[in-house]
């Protein structure tokens, strides 16, 4: 990234490179399945679709703002304390989001309650700050945040759909497996609700993804 190149050619807003920032994390560079980041929250809050959705949305908001702020400050942050600085920014944003939710959408904030803390420690956020926002301009940083949050979010929601459907027979809290199935002896699979099944579901997604795109398989 040389200074002269920046001045000479003004990059279009959605250049090929910028579009890649958005689309790559959705599939070939997915934060959960490829980078294996943010697994902890993928296990913890995918029991119900609604929670997964709210979590994905909150991570999106926090990521956009933290990437933007860190990117704007990237030349001011001393590299020796950069991790702490990132942590302070992320934590402050998460608390801010929590306070605003509590004041304006109280029901949603109750859904989120314990998971808000998890956003602070979400490795994806710190990972993107370190790997991208510290070295790039604000606009690409925002795109990178949106891409990664979306990549994180869709995996979360897919896993939650599986777990809620097979675990409680519901989707978004609404009963979808009719009572007649239960009358015939169908049972909800209680194991789906427990954390190990989240790991296995994520594993299956990784398996499908790598068998479709063999380039992703590590050679050793």
């Amino acid at each position, binding site marked *: 990234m040389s200074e002269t190149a920046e001045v000479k050619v003004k990059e279009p807003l959605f250049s090929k490179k910028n579009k890649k920032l958005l689309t790559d994390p959705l599939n070939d560079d997915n934060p959960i399945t490829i980078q294996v980041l943010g697994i902890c929250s993928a296990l913890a*809050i995918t*029991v*119900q679709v609604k*929670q997964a959705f709210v979590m994905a949305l909150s991570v999106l908001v926090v990521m956009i703002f933290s990437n933007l702020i860190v990117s704007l400050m990237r*030349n*001011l*942050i*001393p*590299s*020796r*304390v950069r991790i*702490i*600085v990132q942590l*302070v*920014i992320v934590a*402050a944003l998460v*608390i*801010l989001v929590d*306070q*605003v939710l*509590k*004041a*304006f959408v*109280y029901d949603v904030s109750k859904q989120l*309650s*314990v998971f808000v803390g998890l956003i602070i420690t979400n490795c994806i956020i710190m990972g993107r700050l370190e790997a991208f926002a510290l070295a790039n301009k604000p606009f690409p940083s925002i795109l990178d945040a949106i891409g990664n949050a979306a990549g994180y979010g869709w995996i979360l929601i897919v896993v939650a759909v599986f777990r809620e459907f097979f*675990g*409680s027979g519901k989707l978004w809290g609404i009963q979808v497996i009719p009572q007649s199935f239960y009358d015939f002896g169908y049972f909800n699979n*209680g194991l789906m*609700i427990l954390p190990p099944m989240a790991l296995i579901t994520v594993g299956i997604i990784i398996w499908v993804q790598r068998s479709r795109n063999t380039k992703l398989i590590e050679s050793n």
Partner: protein
Amino acid sequence: MDVNKNSYIFGFSAILVIVVAAILSFAAESLKPMQTENVRIEKMQNILASVGVEATPKEAGKLFDQYIVDQKLLNHEGKVVEKDGLSAFDIDAVKQYKDKNLSDSEKYYPLFTFQNEEGKRYIVPMAGKGLWGPIWGYVAFAEDMNTIAGSTFDHKTETPGLGAEIKEKFFTEKFIGKTIFEGDEFVSVEIVKGGQPWDSPHKVDGISGGTITSVGVGEMMERTLSVYVPYFKSNPKASL
């Protein structure tokens, strides 16, 4: 400017922390009135929900004033007491339960009286502990102060799909019609595991996979209700 100089790092950190602190405390202070109002409304909704009145946040205040005709404070011996500047609604059952510094005589137990066309209901707030954190709820009694007319439970951090199910209708509905007295003796309601005869009037089927939370609900009911027993017994309408 050298951003890696020690003096710069100190200065930068100090400014960052002060700015962040200022933003956060400003946000917390300015949003506080709305947050406390939300908590108040939720409490009203919960109290009303225990007798089956579903109120939206907007109408909760109005319905609460309309239906809750009396609020009493009981001391730990089940006697009605008056305390200046303390209303039954202000008592935070969870806080009181968790505060280990309070002696029994400093604890107060609220009793809300609900009235509609069908008659009176007595609503008892309670708090206890589940598997991961506090649980709380409201149990409403019919005029005989023995039969449970409805209940609502909530929790802070119970496992979704397991212990967290205590707040679902299918669980709270099981309490309706159960009684807490056997003859003259207080027996409360016990939450039992499957395979046991829970069609007894003092037993409720627990939640599979949420045993510790279910047992917590039972413990919370027994401990809280035992305080109210003298009051319930002294009530002329009680049919024990």
